[in-house]
């Protein structure tokens, strides 16, 4: 009893002393870095903030119709500015009681019909006439215009239209929505404020001239005039804990450690590099987020090494990483393509040419390379195409035979060189091992995923790859007599090295790379996870 009590109290102490503040640090900083909390005031944008606030206030309070565009590069804080302004605006009761808001996004409301429905919904007008509103597009438009026309400056509630990705609205047919919104804002109808948010500097040129004439030509530009010292200061404030942090001592220590971190030379260089590359804060936040996630009870501060590691991840070249996940054969083909490119100065090539080049290469090093059969090479070629490392030339017709379809290499010289340098010692014995560890990994992970969900206790069979691993989920060819059970773990043989792995580790890594995938672009999700896993796995393996 007594011992248990001490154990639990000991745990509580540990909890209070170490874990609890860390959790709070994580919470506070994550909120900050993930843009879930608006800053007190938009830093560096005070003038714009004032301008926009005044403008919207006049709409809310005086019923003056306005239109304005907020223009700035991505990550400059356009939406943040608007949100701050709205927060400040709604603090006034007069505005709060009156202002109606309609938020549209050019990516969601891809045409005027959807946009009109969305407006009607957000204005809560649909109840007024039952389902009538959601009739045809034409009726909908007439309905909304009528509704806006009925209002007048002094009596109706002002409506704020926020058009995110404003430039996309300009691509709608005839720009009907924009014309009508601007027309209302320039005539004595219900007071509205149209706020467009865009990152295109040439957005006005997109507008038709009659639409343009109705727009008030107010533009608020968010161009950060940040210097590198300010940037460093900003990093420090972003990572510092606020004064009202419950554990004062901890906050003090944390802030001191952050200060020393920012004074560190290597960190300064990394941040300078980030600053050189882009001034926007979203990428900075990503970097800091990676640092933050390395903070643990054992290591309750951010060390310069964390920043370096995070920066390495951020600046990693995705395509070069993908190259490292290729089989030797594929890599050889790529090298052959690069030769062709050098010889023919960027002219497109086809499989036949690549194959010939590859054969020349083999002749030179005949002893170390196995001469693959043509179908194998074809598969490898197709795999490269699926990874979009090569692309068919525009306009080359699909009718041409696959061998003769013209292709272009989508890689830069530097990427290939980098990949080759980092590639593990190029195997001398092609014949003995047809699988490289990476591909095994993919097989494992992919098959594991399937097994885990469907047949958790099935044996996992691995063997020689025949064909490609086009999609990681389609590998079904096994080597004759080798069976591996999940319980036993995997034994991988590569040359003379052997790795013994437990399935739990595999699972862990798999989950890790799946997690990592989410950060990458959605488009190439499957491909990128392949690349991702290879990188991670390699690291763990060595």
């Amino acid at each position, binding site marked *: 009893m007594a011992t248990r009590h001490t154990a639990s109290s000991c745990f509580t102490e540990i909890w209070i002393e170490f874990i609890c503040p860390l959790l709070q640090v994580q919470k506070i900083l994550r909120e900050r870095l993930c843009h879930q909390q608006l800053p007190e005031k938009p830093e560096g944008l005070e003038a714009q903030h004032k301008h926009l606030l005044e403008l919207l206030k006049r709409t809310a309070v005086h019923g003056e119709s306005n239109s304005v565009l907020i223009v700035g590069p991505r990550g400059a804080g356009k939406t943040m500015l608007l949100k701050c302004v709205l927060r400040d605006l709604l603090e006034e009761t007069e505005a709060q009681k009156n202002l109606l808001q309609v938020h549209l996004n050019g990516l969601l409301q891809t045409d005027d019909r959807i946009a009109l429905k969305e407006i009607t919904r957000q204005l809560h007008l649909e109840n007024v006439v039952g389902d009538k509103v959601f009739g045809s597009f034409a009726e909908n438009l007439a309905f909304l215009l009528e509704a806006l026309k009925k209002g007048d400056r002094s009596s109706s509630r002002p409506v704020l239209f926020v058009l995110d990705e404003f430039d996309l609205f300009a691509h709608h047919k005839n720009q*009907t929505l924009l014309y009508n919104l601007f027309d209302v804002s320039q005539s004595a109808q219900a007071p509205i404020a149209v706020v467009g948010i865009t990152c295109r500097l040439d957005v006005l040129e997109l507008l038709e*001239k009659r639409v343009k004439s109705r727009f008030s030509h107010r533009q608020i530009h968010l161009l950060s005039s940040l210097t590198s010292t300010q940037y460093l200061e900003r990093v420090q404030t972003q990572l510092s804990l606020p004064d009202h942090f419950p554990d004062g001592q901890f906050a003090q220590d944390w802030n001191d450690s952050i200060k020393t971190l920012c004074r560190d030379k290597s960190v300064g260089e990394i941040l300078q590099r980030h600053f050189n*590359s882009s001034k926007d804060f979203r990428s900075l936040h990503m970097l800091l987020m990676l640092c933050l996630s390395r903070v643990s009870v054992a290591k309750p501060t951010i060390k310069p090494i964390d920043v370096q590691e995070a920066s390495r991840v951020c600046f990693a070249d995705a395509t070069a990483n993908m190259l490292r996940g290729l089989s030797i054969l594929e890599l050889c083909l790529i090298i052959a393509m690069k030769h062709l490119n050098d010889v023919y100065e960027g002219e497109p090539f086809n499989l036949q040419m690549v194959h010939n080049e590859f054969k020349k290469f083999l002749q030179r090093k005949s002893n170390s390379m196995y001469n693959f059969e043509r179908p194998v090479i074809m598969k490898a070629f197709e795999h490269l195409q699926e990874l979009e490392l090569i692309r068919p030339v525009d306009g080359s017709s699909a009718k041409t035979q696959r061998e003769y379809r013209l292709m272009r290499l989508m890689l830069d010289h530097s990427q290939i060189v980098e990949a080759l340098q980092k590639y593990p010692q190029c195997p001398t014995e092609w014949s003995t091992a047809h699988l490289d560890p990476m591909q095994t990994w993919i097989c494992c992970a992919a098959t594991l995923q399937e097994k885990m969900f469907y047949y958790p206790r099935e044996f996992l069979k691995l063997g020689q790859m025949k064909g490609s691993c086009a999609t990681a989920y389609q590998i079904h060819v096994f080597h004759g007599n080798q069976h591996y059970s999940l319980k036993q773990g995997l034994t991988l043989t590569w040359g003379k090295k052997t790795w013994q792995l437990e399935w739990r580790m595999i699972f862990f890594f798999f989950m890790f790379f799946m997690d990592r995938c989410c950060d990458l672009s959605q488009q190439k999700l499957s491909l990128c996870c392949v690349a991702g896993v290879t990188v991670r796995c390699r690291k763990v393996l060595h």
Partner: protein
Amino acid sequence: MKYFGRLRVRRVYRWSEEPLRFNRKLKTFDYRSLAISVDGLPGVTVITTGQHILIEGKDEDSPYVARVMRLFGDESGKQKKASIRWFIRTSEIPTDKLKLLGREPHTQEIFYYQSLNCEEEVDVESILRPVQVKHLDSAAPFPDSDGKDTLYVKLSWDCKAFMEVDSTVVESMSEPALTYSLHPHASRRKPSLPPLLPCSPPAAAPASRAPSCHALPMPDPSIMHRAASGEARYTTEVESMHSATKLSASKCLSAKRRNASSRTPGVRKKLELSSPEKISCVDAVDRLLDEEPEALLAQRLSSSPPQALPLSHRLTPLRKSRRTPTSQYGVPVSPSLVLNRVSVSDINGHTSPSKDDASRAMTPSRRHPKTLRIPTLGVLAEVIDEKSQMMPAATTPRSSKRKSAQLVSDRIRKQLNLLDNHQELNSDCEDEEEFVPSKKELQSSSEGEEESGLESDEVEVVAKRNRRIASGSLTPRSKQHTRSSNRTPQKTPSKKITISTPRTPRHATPSIPSRSLPARQPANVLEEARARLHVSSVPESLPCREQEFQDVYSFVESKIIDGTGGCMYISGVPGTGKTATIHEVMRCLQHAADVDEIPPFHFIEINGMKMTDPHQAYVQILQKLTGEKATADHAAVLLEKRFSNPAPKKKTTVLLVDELDLLWTRKQNVMYNLFDWPTRRHAHLVVLTIANTMDLPERIMINRVASRLGLTRMSFQPYSFKQLQQIITSRLNKVKAFEEDALQLVSRKVAALSGDARRCLDICRRATEICEHSSTTGLVGMCHVMEALNEMFSSAYITAIKWAAVQEQLFLRAVIAEFRRLGLEEATFQQVFVQHQALCRVEGLQPISVSEGMAVCQRLGACRLLLLESSRHGVLQRVRLNVSQDDVLYALKAD
């Protein structure tokens, strides 16, 4: 109320004899006398011109008194009208003003009413009976008992001061009206004499005036007296004592009075209002002012056409000398328009150096036409009995419009720090010039004179009006004005009927919920100015579009009157007032229709931008016309039927098609139908189409459509800087928020760029905001305007490059370097990237990876500093600059 009971006694009005003559221009018949017979009574009362009459008013016991100047009717004989001059009763003058009289007024005393604000034409139906009015010398006592029906005139009243009244007014009163009927011209002209003369110095006058006596059909000895008599002024200015409530009360009264007579809308009225007479710092004043200029104008219009003819007869050399410039233009001559006259000649004095003494001598009066001083008439030849009964004082003046007008000018003067009413001529010129910097130069040219009326932003309301009259006839445009106004002889303000477009009944639609708290009113001058400068604030008038207004008006009006159809195509770049002008025309026409001046009509409006599909045009037209809902095809059939079949009592439909180019379809059947319907016999359809491009018919219409559209085209030119300036000034309406130079800068800049009025207003509005924030002086100055202009017109590219990240700048340099190397304006990312790596090394930066370089490139592409192919091309995507290379180099060099 009792009064209406009496009215129910049915009176029959008819012309007692054949018309004197037919006025072809106005399409009216002039009559000498009118017979009124009351049902059930044998007697017939005959009213002749020159006679005094009672006109039904709000009060049964004291009907209005007036003198008939002219009787006329239209061709059909339906409308019988009388042109009259008002007299005012003591009960109608406010009590505090009565004090100015300096004595107790007589019960039967009336005053000759010299105000420009009263309607001068009434329906004969409002005439009750004739009454006897006698003129008394100002010093003479009131006669003891002359019966209840005799009224006495001693003085005139112009809402500010009592003045000696001219005996010519009196003369005609005392004499039988028949005498005048023989000389209608003379009798009509006479009342206008006295106000004209007083301004001339006694020294110059007799010589020129002497022969005039002989020329007169009715030799008038009083003129001699007048000439010799000195100036006794009764001009006491008391306007500041006037409380707002009284003003508004009196406004109501005058409005009522104007209502009593039938009205027709002023064709030009709205346009005239462009002149920024109004000033609004005080609400009450504002309200008054709303009515005031219209009333003035309305009166001028109502009186001018009928009197144009008589004026062309010159009576005296003196008249001639003074009137030549004016009379040939058909300036109205009436007691109430004295001011007009004076300032007309005044203006002429400005322009023509060959003026005689007389006209030069008039100049003093020009400074304050509103406080015109009329010299006492001296001893008049006629002797009239006097009576001295005192009347109970009442508080309602006939009209206090003049008062408000004066208030306006007074306020302006205050603003200009020219408080003194009795200033020298020069100071007054400055006064005007402060508002209208370009006035002088405008006046120098004959065409400029026309414009000066339009552009000038002057203090003197009346003077301005007259200049317009004077200059108006010089150009063909003004002919149109008169012609169109012929149809509507009576002009009255259309303020009360602001929204006149016919609304077809529609389904109940929801509207934006109303505010829980009322919108705040503008609190200071800048906010006020901002509210006025907002494009949405509907101006009372559209300056600078008079010609177009007239053209459209006459086009539509003629079509409506003839019951035919037609098309008109109107083009012009955005922001030149096309739609606004048409709406203005429609408002005026609707007003005209409301008072039966023209046949009633439908006005419907569709906008190509406000529909989702060209065929929706049918649906919208049908719905606005009949309220029915139908599908596009069905609607087309219904409309086809409607426009091709004859129907009894069909109203003309005026259809405005805005943004015509959007109704284009491949087969063009929508356009075809729109232009084909008007050609049908029974359609009664007028189609006005608006689009931006001048050659739209040639460009997008196939032949059969273009042919049906016809050649009635009009093009709205972009505003010149002067026009823009005038538009702002008229909008600002005397709210002094801008420095003159600042306004000029804005209008010049906008005129040079687009001539878009909206842009101009937006810039001004932004400038007021900047001014407010900078919180320096109250006026918006050059610096503020410059800042606003920069904000709106300067492109952000250079700033964007300047503040871009280092790698982004390097990339742009790499792009230019690669372009130079290739000699092309396009390169692939790969090529540029090689350059970029090299540049990185030169700059001592760590070379970036390909994906980082790609990210930089994409960021530049998102801002559209670069134009990129779609990103699926990877390193092979082609890159182009969206900015000129010079701009990039300039921006990069700057830091």
